[in-house]
């Protein structure tokens, strides 16, 4: 019976993860709200695009992190800088093919200079770029290069 329940839960758990995949197009104010959150959680915001090879390569690191630390107060948002005109044609099929389960927000703001500095004043707009913060704990750091899972874990573990 116990075995059966665990099995069922596993199926349900996997199902939920698969179903949790949500991708949407946003404007900068929605991202700004997230950056300003007062929540006592670790936020990992990764800026990427389907056309950026090193970005695509590091996506599994973020995906694995959220599964591994699902019990922790950790939220990961993958902010896609693909063009909004490519959302259905390119981004959604990509997410499906790569089985990306994290939240994906396509930031539809082409006038880059109006918002890049608001994300991080040192960031020049090069991707991949990752912002890690907990506003309640006043912790914040940025990584302006590609990272692998080990590096990412090393950075995030002390914060959890």
């Amino acid at each position: 019976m116990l075995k059966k329940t665990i099995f069922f839960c596993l199926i349900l758990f996997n199902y939920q993860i698969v179903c949790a995949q949500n991708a949407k197009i946003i404007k900068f104010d929605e991202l700004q709200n997230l950056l300003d959150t007062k929540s006592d959680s670790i936020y990992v915001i990764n800026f990427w695009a389907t056309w950026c090879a090193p970005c695509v390569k590091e996506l599994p690191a973020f995906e694995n992190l959220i599964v591994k630390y699902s019990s922790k107060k950790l939220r990961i948002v993958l902010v896609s800088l693909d063009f909004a005109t490519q959302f259905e044609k390119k981004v959604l099929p990509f997410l499906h093919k790569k089985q990306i389960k994290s939240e994906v927000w396509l930031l539809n703001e082409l006038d880059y200079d109006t918002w890049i500095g608001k994300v991080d004043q040192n960031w020049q707009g090069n991707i991949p770029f990752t912002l890690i913060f907990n506003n309640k704990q006043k912790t914040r750091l940025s990584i302006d290069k590609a990272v692998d899972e080990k590096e990412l874990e090393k950075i995030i573990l002390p914060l959890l």
Partner: protein
Amino acid sequence: MKKLSFLLIALLINLLVFAQEGYKVGDKGMDFSLKNIDGKMFSLASVKDAKGFIVVFTCNHCPFSKLYEDRIIALNKEFAPKGYSVVAINPNDVKAEPDDSFEKMQERAKEKGFTFPYLVDESQKIAKTYGAARTPHAFILQKQGAELKVVYIGAIDNNSESATAADKKYVEDAIHELLEGKKPTITSTKAVGCSIKWKE
């Protein structure tokens, strides 16, 4: 303790990431001697009667660089006769990105009909000195006496997807102002682009 270790990590990362130096507007721009796609060495000093330069760090593989190729060609066509020619520099590590090899640069320049030097910054020293972070990344230099001064750093315009939809043409506007004897109104901008592939 948690907080302290975080601070230490943050500090370390910031040191690693942002330790790279780079130009700010107003700095003196360095000349260089880099290999052009014709196999000859090119330096800014070799351009006679230059009023300045539009130095663009770019490459073959990056989709955002490709989106700006025609715009860079148009900039050179308009401004080279007026004293501001384009100088394109590929700073990427070929090991990390084989599509950015010297041979592929030659191919791409031929395909697109580049009318300006397309140089390879093999040691990545020039990209580091200038503070280029991405492709494309533009620097406008103006000749002031014997020196080259950095007068603009940033994007070419404000719409990567469509040149016609851009309503702020940063580089074009800045050069027009320089030609009128004024200082550029906008001197630095940020834009999305491919990270430069630094050597390990």
